[in-house]
């Protein structure tokens, strides 16, 4: 299984993070992060709470500023130039822990909003594409409902569809399943696995180790703002190198 | 440009009046302004524009009147405003004459048994605020060394209600206003005006300092009304007289002789128009506040100098 997924990884670089440092005030959250993500790669990021996982992926689509080092997404250097930021954001889709759907818009409107206003897609085309992705996440029949009328799992799938409608080349997931009931987690993970199989570049913060084993090319373990260890899933889980990782895995798998 | 040109260009005169004092300036049931002050506005409009209805009446309160005039919102203020030194000099206005010689008086219920204001020691006094009333009152009681308790009220209607309900013993404002107010009572005979008039209140129209042409227009329009009465020109015989008389002063006034109108920058028949608007001073007085009206004021000080009053217009020559 790991074999098949690795085959889709190309040599083209999707994201390069180079010597990145970030501070919140005087608190050093991210320390000297170096990371290269190739197109089609699926990366799972894990680590204890507060270790900076969310901050890292939020830096990638400029929801947070970084203070040192550079981030290059798809050849575009992330700088304070708004043009670049806009460009990167439309290449990178993001999916939040709490979905953050727009409650005043229907599912369909949620999905077509950004294509229409950012990509200037004609409405009809945007809607067709939205329906396509809603079918992909298996909720085309909910298109005209409001987010408040859906279950958590359905909402998270809408959030994924919403990002996909922007046709991003890279998807970021920040603990997409941790706000869900166990039975809904499965729905969402299935959707993500399907995406993974299509070769989407994915960075995913999650503690679902089953998911990591099944789809990831690489697992990154962070602690105290640093990347402590990264490896292929098999090696990572069966044979963690650092002590910190071993401790963390023992806790997580012990549950 | 001067105010006169502005008024002519606008085709309307903006005239500041009080917000409502029956007999002097108040809208009637049809919403038309009428009253003694209003007549002055109309006369000026007739003189400058030839149309006595070309007036925009701007109601002003005691507080807003000076700003309205100073800022140019109104061209002239014909509101019961007392001509005082500080208003003329310090506030930089120009009083163009006196259209009503008033004085502050007191009204008390008859059954109070008071016959002189000097007996009012310790009384509660309702004051209609707005002009110099408070100051005169304070001066009067101070100089007579007696005490009182002031109740300042904004509008005449409310002051009157207080007075009638017995919330104050005395009501003080200009004597003309007292008479007007008493006229509307259920039982006017139950109230008396005390003999003391404690202040001089020469009320007259005023304009901004520094625009002497416009000041002249207003001043001489008022004088035209007064002179007309003196010379016996009335709205009834106006047409006849303006055909020409053998009194040169009348002829000068009505524009059939001389170039007075031109000097003012107005048409020759300016005074004729002003008089036609509401009659001469005497007619205006009789129609709005005279003895046959509910207000029932006698001419008193406001009689012509020939009749023993103070009205004395400089000659038209």
């Amino acid at each position, binding site marked *: 299984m790991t074999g098949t997924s690795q085959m889709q990884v190309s040599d083209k670089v999707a994201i390069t993070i180079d010597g990145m440092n970030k501070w919140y005030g005087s608190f050093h959250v991210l320390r000297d992060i170096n990371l290269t993500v190739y197109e089609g790669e699926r990366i799972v990021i894990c680590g204890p709470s507060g270790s900076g996982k969310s901050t890292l992926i939020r830096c990638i689509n400029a929801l947070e500023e970084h203070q040192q080092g550079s981030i290059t997404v798809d050849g575009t250097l992330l700088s304070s130039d708004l043009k670049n930021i806009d460009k990167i*954001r439309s290449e990178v889709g*993001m999916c*939040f822990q709490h979905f953050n759907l727009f409650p005043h818009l229907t599912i369909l409107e949620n999905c077509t*909003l950004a294509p229409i206003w950012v990509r200037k897609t004609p409405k009809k085309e945007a809607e067709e594409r939205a329906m396509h992705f809603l079918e992909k996440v298996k909720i085309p029949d909910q298109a005209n409902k409001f987010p408040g009328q859906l279950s958590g799992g359905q909402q998270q799938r809408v959030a994924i569809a919403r990002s996909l409608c922007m046709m991003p080349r890279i998807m970021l997931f920040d603990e997409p399943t941790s706000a869900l009931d166990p039975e809904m987690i499965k729905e969402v993970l299935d959707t993500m696995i399907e995406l993974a199989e299509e070769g989407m570049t994915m960075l995913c913060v999650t503690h679902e180790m089953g998911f990591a084993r099944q789809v990831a090319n690489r697992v990154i373990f962070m602690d105290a703002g640093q990347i402590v260890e990264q490896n292929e899933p098999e090696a990572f889980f069966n044979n963690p190198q650092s002590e910190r990782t071993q401790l963390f895995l023992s806790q997580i798998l012990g549950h | 440009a001067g105010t006169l040109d502005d008024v002519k260009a606008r085709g309307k005169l903006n005239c500041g009046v009080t917000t409502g004092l029956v007999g002097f300036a108040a809208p009637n049931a049809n919403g038309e302004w009428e009253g003694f002050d209003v007549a002055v506005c109309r006369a000026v409009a007739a003189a400058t524009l030839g149309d006595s209805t070309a007036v925009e009446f701007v109601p002003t309160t005691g507080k807003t009147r000076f700003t309205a005039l100073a800022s140019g919102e109104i061209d002239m203020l014909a509101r019961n405003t007392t001509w005082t030194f500080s208003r003329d000099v310090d506030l930089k206005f120009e009083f163009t004459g006196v259209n009503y010689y008033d004085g502050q008086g007191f009204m008390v219920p008859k059954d109070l048994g008071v016959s002189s204001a000097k007996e009012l020691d310790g009384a509660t006094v309702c004051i209609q605020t707005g002009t110099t009333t408070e100051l005169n009152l304070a001066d009067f009681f101070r100089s007579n060394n007696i005490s009182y308790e002031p109740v300042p009220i904004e509008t*005449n209607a409310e002051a009157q209600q207080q007075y009638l309900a017995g919330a104050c013993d005395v009501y003080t404002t200009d004597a003309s206003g007292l008479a007007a107010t008493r006229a*509307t009572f259920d039982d006017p005979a139950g109230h008396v005006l005390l003999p003391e008039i404690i202040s001089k209140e020469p009320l007259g129209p005023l304009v901004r300092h520094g625009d002497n042409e416009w000041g002249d227009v207003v001043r001489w329009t008022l004088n035209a009304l007064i002179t007309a009465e003196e010379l016996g020109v009335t709205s009834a015989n106006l047409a006849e007289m303006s055909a020409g008389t053998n009194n040169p002063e009348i002829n000068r006034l009505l524009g059939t002789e001389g170039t007075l109108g031109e000097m003012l920058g107005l048409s020759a028949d300016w005074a004729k128009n002003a008089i036609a608007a509401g009659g001469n001073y005497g007619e205006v007085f009789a129609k709005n506040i005279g003895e046959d009206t509910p207000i029932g004021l006698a001419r008193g000080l406001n009689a012509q100098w020939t009749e023993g009053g103070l009205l004395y217009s400089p000659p038209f020559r």
Partner: protein
Amino acid sequence: MSDKTTNPIAFVAEGTIPPSPPPANETGVVKWLRENLFSSIPNGILTLVALTLIYMILQNTVPWLVNGVWTTNSLNECREVLDGKVGACFSVLTERWHQLLYGFKYPAEFYWRPNLALVLLLVAIAPVLFFDLPRKMLIFTALYPFIAFWLIWGGTIMAPILALLGFIVGGVVFQIYGRGSFAAGFFGGIAAALIIWWLGSLLIPEGASDNAMLPAVPSRDLGGFMLNLMLGVTCVSLSLPLGIALALGRQSDMPLIKWICVVFIEFVRGVPLITLLFVASVMLAYFFPPDATVDLFLRVVIMITMFSAAYIAEVIRGGLAALPKGQYEAADSLGLDYPQAMRLIILPQALKISIPGIVNVAVGLFKDTTLVSVISMFDLVGMIRGPILASTEWNGVYWELLGFAAALFFVVCYGISQYSQWLERRLATDHR
């Protein structure tokens, strides 16, 4: 384990016990009275006190109302008719009806104009107040200000059309250039509108209003309850956009803009409206160029608008704060820029939350429009305190007039506050 404990425990019901009606003392009028009026001794005393109070109020007002006289022409006539009985002289209302509603100067033959404007107002405001109505009606709402302006003030129809045209052109320019950059669109739109207005004002012939379809009525001639309504509606609708801008400004992370907004809001909220009205009536004139006389109505509108904008800004700020941060982030991560995020995501939600608060501000503001009577404008209260009570005929009828004013305001304000409560309930259940 042992029989002693297990046996008594095991139990299976043989069948269902049918529900039976509650005991008699649980229903009926007596129970209601006992529970609601006389549940305890202090409660009983309270009830009696309340009953006496109600009786006293009714005893004093009912005869006065019932004996009311409706058809005389002055207070003295009315007193004669009453002949010493207790009774109201409602005839002042019938006789001065038009003055109370329209002020003393609005031409009588044109009363239909404000009336029509009021009716249209109801139509225009309906889609704003009731979300279920077709959204298409909002087009009429957008047109309404121009129609109403023309109806009430009259004059040449060119003026409102020109104003509308300016807005339309500005909007179109904004649409075109706003796609690229918001700032370009925004300033371009404003510039375009200004150009249109300037060009148009050159084109409208001097004196066009003299022989217009609807003769012009100067704003000084407005009065009565109509003036209250107009001030209320105009100022609330004008202060809404200003309030939104202030609220956004106060939330902004640009310190200068934030401080300008904070100072403005706190300043305006710290000063009584009446002082601001003094500013309008005695001070503002000094701040305009000497030859531009801005009429009092406009000055008052400016002041009241500023006043209510500050309050509305605070309400909207509350609405903005209630939105989870995730909404902003989601909008960002989709690549929407600030104006888009505000217009499409944040404001629609924040405004919806704020509507009850805005309605409350609106009611308060509407009540406060009576303060203009203090600066010599003849609104409903101004008409009563000024021309009507000062007139020889009606000098002395306080109760009827004040009661009428109170009733009129009560009906309108109570209506609006009921609406806002309905809305709050509805918003609470909307979409779960």
